[in-house]
C-alpha cells in the first residue's frame, strides 16, 4: 500500500471530477448554528425575566386559603409555560453549541453551567433594574396572546370555584353590585360583601380598576364577594389565617 493508493485515488478524483465542497456551504452552516445559539440564548434570557416577574408576583400565601397540599399548590402555581420554554431554549442552544466546530471540546455540564451562571446574572440585574416588570408590561400591552397564556397571579385569580376571582371592573351597577370581566373574558356580576366589615373592601369600585376578590360563586356568573382588593394587594399569611378563621366561625354559626 504505497504510492499505488495515491495513484488510484487521484485517478478517481480526476475521472469522477471530484471537487472539494465549496467553503461557503460550511460557512453558512456555521453561521446558521451561531444564529440559532444567539437567538435561543436571547429568548432564554427573555423567558427568564418573565419567569422572575411571575415568581415575584405569585401570591404564595393563598396556600392558606386553598385546601390543597403544599405539593399540589406548588404544581398548580408554578409557571409551567415559562419553565418549559426556558428548558426548550436552553436545550436547543446547548445542542446547537455541540454542533459547532469546537463544541465537542466542552462537556454538556460545563456549557450548561456557564449558561445558567449567565442567566443568573441576567436575573440579578433584572431584579435590580426592574427589567422583568418592564418586559411584562410591554408584552401585556403589545402581545394579546401573552395576556391569555401568562401564568402567575392572573391564573391564580382565575379559580372562582375555589373562591378566587380577579379581573377588571367594567360597570358599576349599584352600591351593592358591579360587573367584572375576568382574565378569560367572561363577565361576572359581583355582589359586594354582606358583612359589616370596613376592611372588606379597600379599593374604589370604579370602571377600569383591576381587582382581586375572595368569595364564592352563588349562581352562574354571579359571585358573592367577601374581600375586594386592589390588584396590587398581596395577601399576607396572617391576614389569610384571620380570614379563614372568620369564614369558619361564620359557617359554624350558620349551621347552628
Amino acid at each position, binding site marked *: *500500500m504505497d504510492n499505488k*493508493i495515491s495513484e*488510484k485515488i*487521484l485517478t478517481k*478524483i480526476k475521472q469522477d471530477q471530484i471537487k*472539494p465542497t465549496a*467553503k461557503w456551504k*460550511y460557512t453558512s452552516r456555521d453561521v446558521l448554528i451561531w444564529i440559532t445559539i444567539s437567538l435561543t440564548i436571547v429568548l432564554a434570557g427573555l423567558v427568564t425575566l418573565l419567569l422572575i416577574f411571575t415568581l415575584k408576583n405569585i401570591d404564595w400565601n393563598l396556600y392558606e386559603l386553598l385546601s390543597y397540599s403544599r405539593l399540589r399548590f406548588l404544581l398548580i402555581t408554578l409557571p409551567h409555560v415559562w419553565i418549559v420554554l426556558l428548558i426548550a431554549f436552553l436545550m436547543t442552544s446547548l445542542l446547537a453549541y455541540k454542533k459547532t466546530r469546537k463544541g*465537542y471540546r466542552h462537556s454538556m455540564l460545563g456549557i450548561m453551567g456557564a449558561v445558567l451562571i449567565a442567566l443568573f446574572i441576567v436575573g440579578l440585574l433584572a431584579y435590580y433594574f426592574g427589567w422583568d416588570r418592564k418586559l411584562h408590561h410591554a408584552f401585556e400591552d403589545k402581545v394579546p396572546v401573552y395576556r391569555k397564556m401568562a401564568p402567575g397571579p392572573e391564573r391564580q385569580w382565575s379559580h372562582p370555584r375555589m373562591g378566587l376571582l380577579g379581573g377588571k371592573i367594567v360597570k358599576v351597577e349599584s352600591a351593592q353590585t358591579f360587573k367584572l370581566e375576568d382574565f378569560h373574558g367572561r363577565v361576572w356580576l359581583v355582589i359586594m360583601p354582606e358583612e359589616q366589615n370596613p376592611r372588606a373592601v379597600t379599593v374604589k369600585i370604579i370602571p377600569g380598576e383591576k381587582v382581586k376578590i375572595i368569595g364564592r360563586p352563588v349562581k352562574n356568573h354571579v359571585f358573592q364577594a367577601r374581600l375586594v382588593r386592589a390588584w396590587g394587594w398581596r395577601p399576607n399569611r396572617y391576614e389569610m389565617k384571620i380570614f379563614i378563621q372568620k369564614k369558619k366561625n361564620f359557617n359554624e354559626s350558620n349551621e347552628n
Partner: protein
Amino acid sequence: MDLQSLDDNKLVEKAKNNPDAFAYIINKYNGPLSRFIKRISYFRHEDIEDILQDVFIKVYKSLNAYDPKLKFSSWLYQICRNQTIDQIRKNKARVTMIQLDSEDIAKMFSSDTDLKKELELKDELQKVKSAISELPFKYREVLILKFIEEMNYNEIIDVIKKPKGTVATLINRGKKMLVKKLKHSKKTSK
C-alpha cells in the same frame, strides 16, 4: 515549488486547486492511517485499503471544512476513525480479533506504569491481544490512541470528539479494565 517541502496546512491549500498536491498528503499519511485502522479494527489488508480510499476521497471533498487551528493529522484521524466505525457497523457479523503486533503491545505496556506491572504477560502475546480485543471499542480506541499512536490529550479530544473529562475517564477505565482482564487471565493460566 517543491511540494514535498510544504507543511500540511500549505499542502491543504495547494490541494484545493491541484489534486496532484493531494498525492503528497496521501503518501505521507496512508501508512500511519492504515496502521491505525488495523489497530482499532479487525479488517484485512484489502478492506483497510478500501476504507483508506474512502477516507482520502472524503478528506479531499471536505478540504474546505478543515480548520487550520486544528492539527491536520488530528482532523485526518477523526475522519478515518468515523469511516472505520461505519465499516465496523456494516460488517458486524465478521468480528474477529484486532490486529496488534508485538511491537504495538510492547509500546503500550512500556508507556504506562499501571500496565508495566503486567509486563511479564508481554510474552503471552495472544492473551494480551485477546484482552485488548475484549475491551469495548470506546476504551480500546483511546488506549490505542494514547499508548500506541502516542497522541496527547488534545489530539485524542479532536480525534474522538469528546471533552477532556470524558477522554480522561475512558483512558483510566480502559486501563483498569485491561489490568483486571490480564490479572484474571494470569490466574486462569496458572
